[in-house]
């Protein structure tokens, strides 16, 4: 019986293919090894929206609307919320029974963590939007998601502006909550001479007071200095 002969040309092709594969993998490895190492002191300068308005008007609204334990109050979410009725901020105790879901009121540290959580989703895009006084806010995933449906398809007769959202559509453009968020992004920030960076909070206690720029009008109501903030954000405590 005669054994079939393997053509020399085919062996050459196989060896050539293997060599190409090794070369590609090697190149990928070289590229990866050239990536910069982690620098714990490196920071990203951002232009952040106003914290006082967020803390006094938006945090409670977003916590009620989005922060339940089965939605954005779950530890694994990219946009993760802490609050009284949902997930609590870890306190460093052994089993985290110091702050219990549903018991103590939301703390200042939790509101701060929620505020930073929104910014940290897309810090550069957030900076762009806020630096342009809230122009084109729908470039932010944070606003496109709650406008989107579970399938990603717009409801019949509606404009498709949202992005697929597993929790379904929880806001629409006429919602006072949505309008307050947009007004918040439009609110002029105070840029400090630190290359545009807003310094981190130093742990100011939560007094529950209105933002520092707010003024009390003759009839006793609070004005925030922007018609949309006055119109929509001040409605939120009663509308959640």
């Amino acid at each position: 019986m005669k054994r079939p002969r393997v053509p020399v040309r085919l062996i050459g092709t196989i060896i050539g293919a293997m060599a190409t594969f090794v070369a590609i993998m090697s190149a990928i490895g070289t590229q990866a090894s050239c990536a910069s190492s982690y620098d714990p002191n490196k920071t990203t300068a951002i232009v952040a929206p106003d914290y006082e308005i967020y803390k006094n008007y938006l945090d409670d609204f977003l916590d009620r609307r989005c922060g339940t334990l089965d939605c954005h109050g779950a530890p694994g979410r990219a946009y993760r919320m802490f609050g009284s009725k949902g997930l609590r901020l870890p306190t460093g105790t052994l089993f985290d029974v110091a702050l219990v879901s549903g018991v103590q009121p939301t703390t200042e540290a939790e509101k701060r963590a929620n505020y930073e959580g929104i910014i940290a989703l897309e810090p550069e895009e957030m900076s762009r939007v806020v630096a342009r006084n809230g122009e084109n806010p729908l470039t932010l995933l944070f606003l496109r998601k709650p406008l989107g449906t579970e399938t990603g398809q717009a409801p019949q007769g509606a404009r498709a502006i949202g992005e697929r959202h597993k929790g379904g559509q929880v806001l629409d453009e006429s919602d006072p909550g949505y309008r307050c968020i947009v007004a918040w992004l439009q609110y002029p920030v105070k840029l400090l001479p630190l290359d545009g960076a807003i310094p981190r909070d130093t742990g100011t206690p939560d007094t529950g007071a209105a933002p520092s720029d707010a003024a009390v009008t003759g009839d006793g109501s609070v004005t925030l200095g922007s018609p949309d903030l006055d119109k929509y954000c001040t409605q939120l405590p009663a509308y959640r």
Partner: protein
Amino acid sequence: MVRKYLLHIALCIGAAASSFGTSSCINDPVHTSAVNALGDETPGYPEESQYHRPGQPCTTCHWSQGPGSNKFVLAGTVFWGQCNISDQEALNPATVKAKCDRQPVDRAEVRVQASKGGAKCFYTNCAGNFFVREDEWNGLTYPLLVSVSKKLSTGQYKVAKMSGHIGREPACSNCHDNPARSVSPGQVYLFEYNEQGVLALPAEAKALKCPPEAPNTDPPKECDL
């Protein structure tokens, strides 16, 4: 000739890889692990019945992937009392069990208001369990508002309302498990500790024969709104 064999080998590898991919969808290791983590049946309750595993996340098994035979769109268990434990005690599962195990509430009324699909009321059975099969509430749409109540022997009602809403989770205990801590408000319960730190439960909060001895002594499944 060899080229022909190479083609066959490539096809075989492709088919094998494809079958591995398919099996990973059926035998989802995450789901299997979640089912296995439930452990053995709860002693004292009949296995594989409507009374089994009170307080466990029903939809881990009663969902599209099984192995439970029915898919539930909402299910849970109601207990009599709250569980308060210290940080140190929470580290020991035996202590958590000893201090937090409560009797389930028989014939509690679980009222559910859906964002679409109306509202319904369900009774718990003697194991404190209630469950809604997929075909029992067509059009149920989350989010939901839920309250639990129980008519006591004194004629008074004890009511507990969820302060928030349920976004999309069908099993109560996936959020409500013991002990109460940063990620959970504790099991669904009717009575809290009073100012003196005492859990003053009513006379009804005692061990029941479950399932009931006489047939058909369980309440009807749905109650009046």
